[in-house]
């Protein structure tokens, strides 16, 4: 037991030490974020002294961009659960590693939520009035007190899960199911609750017809499960890119020695080569002669010796390869282990993931015997894939072999896809009810979408949001977005759209017109905006540091096995050496 406690302390200390180690890009990124945090802190200090008068809020519009952001990020936090459900309920192994990244995102998002609520308070010094037992907590009467409980509870649940799973990984131990599965299931329900409760904050106000609608809760969930996984899709790709890039220096030297100098024989490909390939790949026969001819532009035939690498994991070239003769082995390095994905014979394709998605190579391909391959530029592959049969065969092989994260990302895509459809459907329901009935309660919606009595501050915003959401929905529904680049576009559009719609588009119109019919418009001040930037930077900083700690542990680079002996703490050089290994 004492050993366990000691291990845990060492684990925490080493995690902390990791936060301060990185290359110049890491320092630059963290430094930039810190500068923004400090700018935000400065703006908040001004607000603390002079009061909320430095914001654009008034008695008429008494909540603004702070509460709007709070609402949005509660959704992001809740959506982390969308990674958990496929893994633990449907046993989707591909997403397994990503669960921790999702939960860490939830932690960062909740911290941002708490920060946004705090800066919105008129008397932050009296926060202790909110602490159950010490203050005077209006539970269960006030939905805000429910929110305090569910948000902090969710933070604790996620912190526990992350540290427990990482600690097990650190000790190279299988996590005990009893110690985390119950928490996972509680966490799933809890995630739904944080967003439902946040919706109820608004729904429960009978004097505000714009919010007092039972569809707000479901809409909150649908939009959260769109924007959250969309954000995770983007974050995962950033993580992959940052962690996959081979460090310069020593590795470059290795590459030089081992990579084949592009074959013993190297020549332009001809139609005869395609005919040879068609013998092993009958689908090619259905491609018209003209397209085949066109696809030969830039195509090469290479002959390499056994042991030569044709492409390397992490590199950024985008050609696709077909095996004409011989045998190729695909290896993937992951978490310090090399996995042989599979051997490929004549007629089979490799390198198509990077060719189609433009991402760095997900694996290394090495000739196992003297091998002849056809090398096609990405455009040629796309041309061939305009043929239905070719497209099907290549895609089916691609999904078979996609690296874990890619398949994970596509799973997330289907979540975003369905949620977005539901989101837009619910929005249409709301719009119909509001505008078709056309009673006095439509004023807020009218203000939002068309402007009211000449006041139209939110009109350009909400139409931008609507446009973003619709384009994102169309992109997500089309098979086009199976390519990561278009998926990313769709995700960015969905996030921007939902951020506007659920932030400013939800909070501000609730106050306009006021219950007494007055119209006072709201726009955030510079100071308010700086505070928001500060909190965003703070959230990103938290997430960056959490990832900085989690990634080496997941990769197995930092573990109990390489714990420093006599000294209680790793020296800087030791830590760097471990990270590089």
């Amino acid at each position, binding site marked *: 037991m004492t050993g366990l406690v000691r291990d845990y302390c060492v684990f925490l200390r080493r995690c902390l030490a990791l936060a*301060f180690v990185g290359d110049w890009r890491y320092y630059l990124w963290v*430094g930039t974020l*810190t*500068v923004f945090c*400090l*700018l935000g*802190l*400065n703006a908040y*200090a*001004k607000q603390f*002294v002079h*009061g*909320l*008068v430095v*914001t654009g*809020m*008034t*008695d*008429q519009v*008494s*909540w603004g961009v702070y509460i709007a952001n709070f609402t949005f990020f509660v959704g992001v936090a809740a959506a982390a659960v969308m990674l958990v459900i496929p893994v633990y309920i449907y046993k989707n192994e591909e997403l397994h590693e990503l669960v921790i990244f999702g939960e860490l995102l939830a932690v960062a998002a909740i911290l941002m939520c708490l920060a946004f609520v705090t800066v*919105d*308070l*008129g*008397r*932050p*010094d*009296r*926060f202790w*009035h*909110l602490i159950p037992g010490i203050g*005077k*907590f*209006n539970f269960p*009467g*006030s939905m*805000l*007190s429910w929110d*305090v409980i569910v948000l902090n509870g969710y933070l604790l649940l996620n912190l526990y899960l992350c540290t427990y799973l990482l600690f097990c990984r650190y000790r190279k131990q299988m996590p005990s199911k009893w110690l985390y599965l119950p928490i996972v299931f509680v966490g799933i329900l809890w995630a739904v609750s944080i967003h439902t409760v946040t919706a109820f*904050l608004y729904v*429960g*106000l*009978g*004097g*505000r017809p714009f919010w007092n609608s039972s569809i707000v809760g479901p809409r909150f969930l649908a939009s959260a499960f769109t924007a959250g996984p969309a954000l995770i899709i983007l974050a995962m790709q950033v993580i992959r890119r940052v962690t996959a890039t081979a460090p310069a220096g020593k590795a470059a030297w290795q590459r030089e020695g081992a990579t084949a100098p592009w074959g013993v024989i190297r020549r332009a490909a001809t139609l005869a080569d395609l005919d040879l390939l068609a013998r092993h790949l009958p689908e090619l026969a259905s491609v018209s002669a003209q397209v085949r001819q066109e696809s030969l532009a830039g195509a090469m035939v290479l002959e390499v010796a056994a042991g030569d690498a044709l492409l390397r994991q992490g590199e950024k070239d985008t050609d696709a390869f077909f095996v004409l003769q011989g045998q190729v082995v695909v290896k993937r390095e992951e978490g310090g282990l090399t996995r042989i994905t599979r051997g490929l014979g004549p007629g089979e394709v490799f390198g198509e993931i990077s060719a189609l998605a433009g991402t760095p190579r997900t694996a290394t391909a090495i000739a196992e015997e003297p091998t002849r391959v056809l090398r096609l530029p990405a455009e040629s592959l796309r041309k061939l894939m305009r043929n239905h049969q070719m497209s099907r065969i290549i895609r089916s092989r691609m999904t078979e072999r996609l690296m874990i994260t890619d398949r994970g990302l596509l799973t997330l895509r289907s979540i975003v896809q369905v949620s977005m459809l539901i989101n837009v459907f619910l929005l249409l329901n709301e719009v119909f009810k509001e505008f078709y009935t056309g009673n*006095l309660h439509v004023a807020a919606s009218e203000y939002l979408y068309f402007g009211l*009595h000449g006041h139209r501050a939110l009109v350009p915003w909400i139409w931008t949001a609507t446009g973003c959401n619709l384009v994102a929905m169309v992109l997500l529904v089309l098979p086009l977005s199976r390519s990561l680049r278009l998926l990313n576009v769709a995700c960015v559009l969905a996030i921007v759209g939902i951020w506007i719609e659920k932030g400013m588009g939800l909070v501000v119109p*609730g*106050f306009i*017109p*006021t*219950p*007494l*019919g*007055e119209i006072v418009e709201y726009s955030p001040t510079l100071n308010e905006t700086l505070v928001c930037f500060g909190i965003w930077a703070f959230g990103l900083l938290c997430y960056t540091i959490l990832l900085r700690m989690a990634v080496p542990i997941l990769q197995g680079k930092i573990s109990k096995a390489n714990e420093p002996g006599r000294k209680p703490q790793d*020296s*800087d*050089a030791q830590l*760097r*050496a471990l990270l590089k290994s």
Partner: protein
Amino acid sequence: MNDSPSSTGRSDAWSDASPEQGMNRRSFLRATAALASGLAAIAALSPLRELESFSSVEEFLQKHYKEMTPEEMAKVLERIEREVERQYGLRPHVRDYKPMNGVEYVYCLNLTRCIGCRKCVHACVAENNQSRNPEIQYIRVLKMPNGTFDTEKADHNYAPELVPGKGFYYMPVQCHQCKNPPCVKVCPVKATWQEADGITVIDYNWCIGCRYCEAACPYWARRFNFTKPSIPKDKINPDMSYLGNRPRQQGVMEKCHFCIQRTRVGRYPACVEVCPTGSRKFGNILDPNSEVSDILQNKRVFILKEEVGTLPRFFYYFDI
């Protein structure tokens, strides 16, 4: 940066010195970075220097109104008197008035008679030590065109030389002191509650300033102190109550409290007293002979936003 691991096995002076130097340089850089970020953080917090006695320790630790013993309350009242004296240069009389037994206040407003002169608004500001800059007012008078109750058609900022305007009627709105108050329900810290005589009050020292009550109120009756309220020294009303008109702090809510410091000693609220047309009636609904009981029984009474179910203690009525 020199990252070569020191376990190369070679022991000549040159190779030993190299990581050592790297370490020195790195720790130097790191110390500089730490110093710089420390200084930057202090610089970022520098606006706090302008903070003048935001909250004393006593004030910070003060208990909730309902949990204070009479002795503790006496101390608090004494402290508030000292603070007001320090700020405004005159010693006020701050008391904690309790509700009277057998009393439930009701307010009736005659829409036929109101001429929209806004005398009530200004009497209220003077009586209740409301901030003049920024301006905080508990009563909002709506200038409504005849023939509609749609408040969206109201003019909130009318400023003619003469009232009433032809073709208009006037509807003053203030806290309706609801029997089912949404503002009380939503407050996360119970800083606002309904007293036995029906007045909804706020403990200005307990409010955290989340403004949830302001969003919940269907009558737009609550006001927030977006900054430190400012009242000219010669305009201070020294007759103060803890739950009523004592000066408020920055960052807390306030609202109409039926002039608790007057009504709980048997006087009329300031707005009732000042009204030149007698449109405003105030009294005890539990007394069957009171003026308000008579109005509710015999006049045509209208309840603003009756459909939201807040059961106001504020009624509009018509003569004709």
